[in-house]
């Protein structure tokens, strides 16, 4: 399967996943230490998805993101320091502290914004795809969202239009089984959300969201379809989040159906399993991994320091940027 991947690419996958992982572990630390205002929704466990999908994109493509958006940003190469500072509400943040974790925008990376409204970003990303078609560029858009967001009306309206007009977009569902506490199986009859593609006459595919290679391959195909004018794809990635819905959620609801649910998913950790496999297959050595990890650690620590050192914005900042 993965033989066509160069070592560089494989290293790239790991680098991105590990960077997300470490970045968010530090976010969690900030929360635990009471240094983070508000909350954050961690992407831990889902790293393979943003990594695999974004590796299939060019830098001009657009991304619609969600409340669980740190991973998407990291995958697009957003600056860790500016992300971290934003999460802490500091002047050095992407939005100078106005947005916070749920609203980090990095327009220079094609990120149209994380979004606090579930389903809110789906039509926005669809609009970006319309722009690409309108201007005749070969850009595409990717809209990431959770399985539960697919129960919002905006999901339906967006996919219908994208399908009708063959817009260059890929809808990526990160199906981690839960909304906050609500099990998707209790509020939706179709087990595979990818089935919903049939309602719009577009391809719907199911992907192992714990396997970055599987995600990347599926994404490449969907991206190609979009870029060549053949319209949208609904790509469902099966995954799991390590933590609760947000940093403060003990996630008691997950043992309802299966007490081993979390453990069995964690055995399939996208970061560790990839690493083990690469070592086993002698594609990347332990030493190489170590070096990479150390580099990333340094990046993350630099970001943490940047964020801590960054001052809070001046109160007068509250009154700027209301209008462009």
């Amino acid at each position, binding site marked *: 399967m993965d033989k066509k991947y160069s070592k560089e690419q494989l290293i790239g996958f790991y680098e991105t996943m590990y960077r997300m992982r470490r970045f968010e572990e530090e976010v969690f630390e900030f929360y635990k230490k009471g240094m983070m*205002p508000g909350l954050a929704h961690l992407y831990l466990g889902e790293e393979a998805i943003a990594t695999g999908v974004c590796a299939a994109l060019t830098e001009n493509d657009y991304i619609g993101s969600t409340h669980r958006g740190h991973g998407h940003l990291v995958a697009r190469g957003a600056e860790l320091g500016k992300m971290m500072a934003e999460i802490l*509400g*500091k002047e050095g943040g992407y939005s100078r502290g106005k947005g916070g974790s*749920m609203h980090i925008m990095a327009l220079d990376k094609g990120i149209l914004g994380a979004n606090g409204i579930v*389903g809110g970003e789906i039509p926005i990303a669809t609009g970006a795809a319309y722009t690409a078609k309108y201007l005749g560029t070969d850009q595409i858009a990717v809209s990431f969202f959770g399985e539960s967001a697919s129960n919002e009306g905006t999901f339906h309206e967006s996919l219908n239009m994208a399908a009708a007009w063959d817009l260059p977009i890929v809808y990526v569902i990160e199906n981690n089984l839960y909304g*906050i506490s*609500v099990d998707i199986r209790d509020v939706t009859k179709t087990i595979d959300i990818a089935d919903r593609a049939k309602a719009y006459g577009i391809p719907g595919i199911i992907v192992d969201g714990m396997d970055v290679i599987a995600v990347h391959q599926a994404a490449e195909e969907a991206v190609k379809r979009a870029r060549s004018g053949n319209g949208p794809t609904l790509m469902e990635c099966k995954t799991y989040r390590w933590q609760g819905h947000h940093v403060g959620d003990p996630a008691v609801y997950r043992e309802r159906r299966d007490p081993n649910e979390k453990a069995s998913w964690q055995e399939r950790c996208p970061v560790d399993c990839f690493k083990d496999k690469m070592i086993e297959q002698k594609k990347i050595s332990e030493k190489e991994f170590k070096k990479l990890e150390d580099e990333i650690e340094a990046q993350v620590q630099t970001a943490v320091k940047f964020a801590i050192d960054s001052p*809070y914005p001046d109160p007068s900042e509250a*009154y700027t940027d209301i209008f462009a």
Partner: protein
Amino acid sequence: MREILYRDAICEAIDEEMERDDRVMMIGEDIGFIGGNFKTSVGLLDKYGDLRMKDSPISEAGIVGMGVGMALTGLRPIVELMFSDFLLVAADQVVNQAAKITYMSGGQASVPMVIRTPMGAGRSSAAQHSQSMQAMMAHFPGLKVVVPSTAQEAKGLLKTAIRDNNPVIFFEHKMEYSNKFMIDDVVEPIPFGKANIVREGTDITIVATSSQVMKSMDAAAKLEKDGISVEVIDLRTIVPMDRDAIITSVKKTGRLLVVDEAHEKCGIGAEIGADVMDDVFYYLEAPIGRIATPNVPLPFSPALEFPIIPSVEKIIVKVKKMME
């Protein structure tokens, strides 16, 4: 009297009303298994079962619309919207449907539905999770709008809301949920449209809503030391509004300050001022004042958020200015 958390007072009101009337039920996101995002319905799923405590998918327009349908056909649904900002996702069902059906049907139908939803800023929840929507809700005829202050008030007013035959928008201040209050052992329903004079005074009238009542009381206590005698009115319900209580008080004090957390523009302060203007104009010794959230989206960083929302300090400054 006993001590209670605000959130538990809410839960008690729901519980007692569900016990009293089989037709009362609740639907909303994460209200069942985990007992609500803000823990306002803990234990009720076990007690009342899945049909009466329905964990819904993330479909705000859908669940409010279903609530309307249930209310039209004999149930008395309580719909929880996890944040009042999401009233905007369901706005058509709230404003074009629930609010207007009794009127459009010439009185054939009634919609006994309560939408319970947390309002307000102060948690670094940023622009999409911190809004106070009472002015928007009050603007559209057909909705009753309730803004309880203490736990006692919340419990009594929620009972009334559930027994009312009209759509009621019930705003719980999210900064109060974890606060302790004293409460009567038995709390009777508190009638709508009857303001509560929580402190008598002679120099200035403060009309306050929700958490601002407590802030105004703090301010009044401090202002007393400066020799300013403040009358504080807990408005309780914005629709219906107790004009008489306000007018009587202002005629006595000659000054009116309205403190409410919704945005200032076309807000509650503007409305109350305009509403009583004809009656109090010739008694006024100073222009009517208002304290509200200024016309900027809610920022994330606490360094920006706290300075813009109403506070005890701001009330004191404003009152002193009005007394000049």
